[in-house]
Structures are given as C-alpha cells and as structure tokens.
C-alpha cells in the first residue's frame, strides 16, 4: 500500500481492500451507469468510495481520455493496476465489463425488436437528455479541482473555453484538438511548475 499517494489538504483517502473489492465496486459502478458509465464514475470513485481526490480524478481522467480505448476501461486499468498490479487491473476491468455484458446480451435476446419501437425510442430520447445533463454536471463540479492547478485559474479558464469552443461549437475532431492544445498546455504547465519550484 506504500504506493498510494498521500491526499493533499488532509482529505480522507480510502483504498480498495483487495481485488474482490475492486471487482465488486466496478461491477456496482458499471451497473449504475445508464447512458454510459461516465455519468457515475466520478460520483462513485471520488464521492462515495473516496479512492481518489477530486484533483487525482481529473489527472487520471486526463490520461484515460488521451489514451486510445474507452475512457472508463482505461480508468479501471489504471486504478486496478496502481493498487494491485496486473491482476488488480484485470479484476477492475472484469468487474466493469462482465455483468453489464451478460445483462446487455440478455436484453438483446429478450427484447429483440423492442429497441426499434416508438416506446423504446422515446425512453432512449429521455435517457439521453438526462445523461447529457449528468455528464455536463460532472464537468462543472470538477472545475473546482482546478483551484490548485499550477497554471493559475485564468489560464485554465482560457484553455477550457478554447476546448469547449473547438469541440462543442466548431465540432473539430477530438484528436486534433488534443494534439494541438494538449502539448501547448503541458509545456506551459511545465514552465509554471518550474517557477513554483515544484520540479
């Protein structure tokens, strides 16, 4: 357990007790994730389990986002691997995928044809609107995690606004945006860290 980073500002930090705990926690997390696990991952890992602080979640989420593959899958591998190595990563991944796969395949077999009915389409429309709101709310809550960012609040807001305009309004491809803004922001952050004497 010596690898667990100490929490800044004295927040209580928990860790998964063992690999079974990881597996069950990720299963529970995945099964709550209607409209995508993204909507619940922050609430379960940060607010309920306290395995990560808000700041650590943002840092890990950045890595999970930039690597190829589903973001939550990447996050499960990172967390599982950090606490218990390769088997931990596999336990978290299995928890995330196993039960939902069985569930979604059973649904597909049981309700073949239902997904195309107006009733199902209406439900999906409603779920989609709520899921969109949930994801936006997670982002707004995480803005607080920028308070300790070495680049300072103003720079963070400028970078965030540029990203929002590029993706949300101009609809530029994600890879382009990450590959242009990402290196600029990282180089600037390195400069700020040096100034602050953190390096």
């Amino acid at each position, binding site marked *: 357990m010596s690898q667990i980073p100490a929490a800044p500002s004295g927040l209580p930090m928990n860790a998964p007790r063992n690999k079974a705990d990881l597996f069950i926690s990720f299963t529970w997390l995945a099964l709550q994730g209607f*409209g995508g696990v993204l909507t619940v991952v922050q609430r379960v890992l940060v607010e309920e389990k306290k395995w990560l602080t808000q700041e650590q979640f943002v840092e890990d989420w950045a*890595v999970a986002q930039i690597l190829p593959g*589903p973001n939550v899958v990447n996050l499960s591998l990172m967390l599982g691997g950090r606490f218990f190595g390769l088997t931990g990563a596999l336990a978290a991944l299995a928890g995330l995928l196993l039960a939902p796969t069985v569930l979604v395949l059973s649904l597909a077999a049981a309700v073949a044809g239902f997904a195309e009915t107006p009733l199902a389409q209406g439900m999906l429309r409603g*779920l989609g609107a*709520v899921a969109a709101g949930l994801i936006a709310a997670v982002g707004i809550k995480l803005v607080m995690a920028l308070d300790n960012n*070495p680049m300072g609040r103003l720079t963070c807001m400028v970078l965030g606004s540029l990203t929002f305009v590029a993706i949300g309004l101009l609809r530029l491809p994600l890879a382009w945006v990450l590959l242009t803004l*990402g290196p600029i922001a990282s180089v600037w*952050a390195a400069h700020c860290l040096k100034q602050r004497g953190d390096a």
Partner: protein
Amino acid sequence: MTLTLTLADWGSLFLHFISLSLLSVGGAITTAPDIHRYLVDETRWLSETQFTASIALAQGAPGPNVLFVALMGWNVGLNAGGGLAGGWAAISLALWGVFITMAGMLIPSCTLTFVATQWAHRNRDMLAVKAFKAGMAPIVIALLIATGWLLTGSHDNPARDWPLWLVAAATTLLVWKTKTHMLVLLAIGALLGALGWI
C-alpha cells in the same frame, strides 16, 4: 438475415477490430462510422437496423458504451447461425462473435494503457508527467462539459427539441446543486420519454 462465415471471415473480423483499437481516442464510439462501413456496407454481415439498435441498446442499458461492440459481435454471430431460431448453435456462434469483436477492440488499447500508466505512475514525480497532468486538466474538464452540450445539441430542432434541452439543463442543475440520486433522474427521463412528452 442468414449468412455463412468462414474461418477466414472470422479472422478478418478480428483483425478489423484490432486495427481500430488504437485509433479509438475519445472512446470506442469514435470508430462507429468505420465499423458501419465495414460491417454494413462492405461485408453486409450486419443489417442497418441491427447496427442502429446495437448502439441504442448499449447506450440505454447500464454499463460502458463500448458494449455496442459486443452487441454487434453478437448479431454477426447470430446472423451466421440463422438467428435466434437456430437455437444453441446460433447462440454459441453469437457468443463467439462477442469474444472476437471485444477481444479485438480491447486487447491493443488495454495493453498500451496498462504499460503506459504503470510507467507514468512510477515516474509521477518527473516534471514531464506532472506537467502533462496539470496541462491536460482544464482541457478534459471542458471536454466533459462539451460532451454534455453535444449530446443535447445533436437534437437541433428548437420547435420540437426544446423539452429535451430543458430536461438536460434541469438535470445539470440538480446534479450540480443537490444530491439527487442519478437513478431517480434517469427513471424520470425514461418515463417522460416513454410518455412522448420530450
């Protein structure tokens, strides 16, 4: 829809998903257009309806959205076995399809993620690692907000879609300012949708 898949066909299905895995920056869903081109247009192993229903079901059901890949594998296998009427033989083929597509989609990206993040965690005090995380933080937070915005904004007919926008905005406020359980909000959304009110 019934079709015959040779061993070589299964091999090429596996290779296709392997080749998409490392391109799926931002989530597996970003590869959906290419999967459509391959499975629906080129090989015709999947019908248009099955393609759309797979994505819709994976988004409506709990679990990661990448399960749309599992559902497509399931449907390809089922088609190869003559549909659900084909009994256990068809279901075995469908499960085989799930395994082939999911393994292809996940093995390359998971391997890369595991190796890269273990390295980054061991070197977490390195300036480059710290700078990357700090620099990316505001960008990924904005991405989350933009994702919520895009999911709502894809419905862009104000006269018809304003109730959807209202529900999304109300959800954002409730989650931000209160501790309302997400399942309650999702249930309300599904109910409003089922009633045809939004």
